[in-house]
């Protein structure tokens, strides 16, 4: 996996400067963490560092997934993070349930015009249909020139949101929506 390579590259880079980086490919001292947690259930599990998805303080969190990687066993504050030094608020402390809650949508859903229900569909079907809708609207509303000026835009499609996404995702969305599709209605949560 590409990320593994990254982690190693990264370790090569900073391994010399930081003793805490010696262990494993996750870049932090696992034994230290385990000493602090002691919980039997997670002793054999590997913590994965993440950053809280809620507010922008950016607290570090450790996630313990099962060995089979099919469930989240435990999460806790990352004591190595200089931002939160292990502590978390009520939201950061309950990110396990973002995975475990039954409310998660696990399959693509479609709602037809006038319908009162969702239908489960395949990803491929969804992509096909969405691309068709986008193309149909875009082709009909696309303006190449306005008063002799190249404007290459459609004012009929909106892209809204993105404040909880990763930077890499916002880059791709920004690129696709603006540079590729010519959208002008591009907005997100900073405005509200």
């Amino acid at each position, binding site marked *: 996996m590409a990320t593994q390579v990254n*982690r190693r590259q990264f370790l090569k880079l900073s391994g010399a400067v930081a003793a805490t980086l010696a262990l494993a490919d996750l870049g932090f001292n696992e034994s230290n963490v385990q000493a602090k947690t002691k919980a039997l259930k997670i002793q054999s599990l590997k913590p*994965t560092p993440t950053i809280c998805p809620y507010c*922008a303080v*950016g607290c570090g969190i450790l996630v313990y997934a099962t060995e089979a990687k099919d469930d989240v066993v435990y999460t806790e504050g990352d004591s190595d993070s200089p931002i939160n030094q292990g502590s*978390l608020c009520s939201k950061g402390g309950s990110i396990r349930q973002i995975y475990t809650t039954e409310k*998660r949508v696990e399959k693509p859903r479609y*709602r037809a015009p006038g319908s009162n229900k969702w239908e489960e569909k395949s990803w491929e079907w969804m992509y096909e249909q969405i691309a068709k809708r986008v193309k149909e609207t875009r082709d009909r509303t696309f303006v190449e020139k306005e008063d002799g000026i190249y404007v290459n835009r459609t004012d009929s499609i*909106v892209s809204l949101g993105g404040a909880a996404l990763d930077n890499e995702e916002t*880059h791709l969305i920004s690129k696709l929506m603006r540079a590729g599709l010519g959208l*002008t209605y591009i907005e997100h949560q900073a405005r509200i």
Partner: protein
Amino acid sequence: MQYSDVLMVIGANPAENHPIGFRWITKALKNGATLISVDPRFTRTSQLANIYGQLRSGTDIAFIGGMINYILENHLYHEEYVANYTNASYILSDAYSFEDGIFSGYDEIERKYDTSKWSFETDAEGNVLVDKTLQHPRCVFQLMKQHYSRYNLETVTSITGTDRDTYLEICKVFGSTGQVGKAGTILYAMGGTQHTVGTQNIRIFAIIQLLLGNIGIVGGGVNALRGESNVQGSTDFGLLYHSLPGYIDVPKAVPEENNLAGFLARVTPKTGYKVNNPKFIISMLKAYYGDYATKENDFGYHMLPKISNGKNYSFMYLFEEMRKGGLEGIFLWGSNPVVSSPNSQSAHDALANLKWMVAVDLWETETSAFWQSEAGKNYADIDTEVFLLPACSSYEKYGTVTNSGRWMQYRWEALPPKGESRADLQITHELALKLKELYQDENTPAARQINAMSWDYGTDHHPDFDKVAKEINGYDIQTKRQLSGFGELADDGSTACGCWIYCGFYPEEGNLSQRRDNVDNGQSLYSNWSWVWPMNRRVLYNRASCDLNGKPYNEEKALIWWDETKQEWTGYDVPDFIKTTKPTDPAGSKPFIMQSSLLGDIFATRSDGPLPEHYEPYESPVQNALSSVQFNPVVDIFEGKHNPRGDYDKYPIIGTTYRMSEHWQSGTMTRNQPWLSELASHMFVEMSEELAQEKGIGDKDEIIVTSARGEIKAYALVTKRFKPYTVLGKKVHHIGMIWHFGYKGIVTGETANKVTPIIGDANSNIPEYKAFLCDVRRA
């Protein structure tokens, strides 16, 4: 923050909403700092503060304007800093004036200013005339002094409703940070921004901080406490209609911008760091259009959409357009406007005018389910097709987020996406590939644009993450070498870079956002933990922490300093400029390199004036006591049956909205979780004991809040934290409601935004969620 002497929290409640950030405030308090909390209600932050000042929602400018007046009258400002690091010394042209709430150049019919009236005097070569003694009657300092002289103690406290003695104490204590070597900081959040004068609220925070020499130093600053984990990053990457990545204006459909040179001429200032904008923009075009972008075709510039000149595409305008039927399709990326829009019922109704909606989310939200009977709709009448694409959570994928302090931190993948859910990165990639496939054989204008866009992240379902990251950082196109900073970007098409401010996070050595060295290298900067834009600089404008000769104003809190022997800048942080630039050189003496003046702009052109002026909220219980102009004279008014303005006679109570610790934003990420749902399971409205008694309402009673837009049912929380104000001699009540609820999720409740108006700030267009008129009664 832990190094501040005085912290003033105004328009934020970090103890509640940024609890872990608050730990640093607690540290400062242990070090002997004073915490001031200014808020309409006595919050969890107020509880931990040394001084609490009650202010009526929407009167921040009056509050701070009065403090500025006090600081100037009592000579508490940092004179050397003000004279040399701000534009206080600039001399204004005769065209600038201010009278009865209006600056020169106002057009009453257009509700707009001709901002050219606010220019500076220049010499024959165009250099601004300055008076560093700050005595010239037309210099910014003197005109500002005159402006805020009207903000005297009596007037201000009668407007804000603040207790006189408390107000004076706040002026004194915060004003004391003007002493050389002292640090004061201001923390704000949506309580500052969500007003018709939101931008000017933040401007006046910056002005008082410049006067006190509190910007660019350890323990200083104007700190925005941001609410979403990556609202910083998504703004950096241009997910707003007016902004390209890296805070560059989007091109407009005007003749001058029909080619790249014309566009660059508008967005490239003559001085300041942004003189390099052409390099940033051309490198971005290379990242967007790849091989298509050549020197001959202006690097594909004409392919970028040009917004219609003068048209506003921002959130409220977007929903107005949707309401009128002008929009056909929408992509929602974890966005839930049925809960988060002002006057949210009108937004909800508008959605039915769409032909199609693509909602990428972890949950079924109030928005993607807007057509259901549960939402109060007759589904048979709604023709909108809805595609709900299940996204995975942040730890079921990998990538980076940027926090409030601009720290770009990496998140590793703990386990694969749950069920069939997918990462937004993958979804965007797959959609892009599908769309490109549909268009590949066509040659219409619409096809030419998407075909021109490069998309070189592989053809797998999941894009090559590393390629995306490297494209953001920037590389040399010929050698594919990763660039180490934006100083290496070129304007000849030889470099590609998706977002110039991030250039340097992924040099040849590796992805620095993954760094986890938590050794403190001084002043708690942790310079080897993750990476901070720009250039891993932890404190922006750090030059301002030193005097004219490059000596720190406070040795103990030094960030950088000039080393005479080595003839270079050294220290804990990275200086903003080439490190051998002498402190007395023009380029080394002005700290604010992102401003074209290189100075802290006390006087700055905004659509609603060059100096912040108090206006009442759009809906207010009183007349403006400082001028005859009632509310911000340049805001757009959204007229129509769907958005009436409430009168004081019918709606005599001030309403405000806010967040609480257990929930988050529109509630989708918290009301779908059992623990958090259990912790806070009801929609409630806070009110004072006095108001409850007047209305015969008991604690936990069901109540109805009404406004000119609609009504909601909720539970009453009767509390001593709310107190009525005396405003201009009149007793005024206020109530506050949490804004996280909706009809979906484990716990449900009515949406506060059903009662808020569509009206917003004149510059940022953020809605005025924080101050409106309403009434309340028992259900």
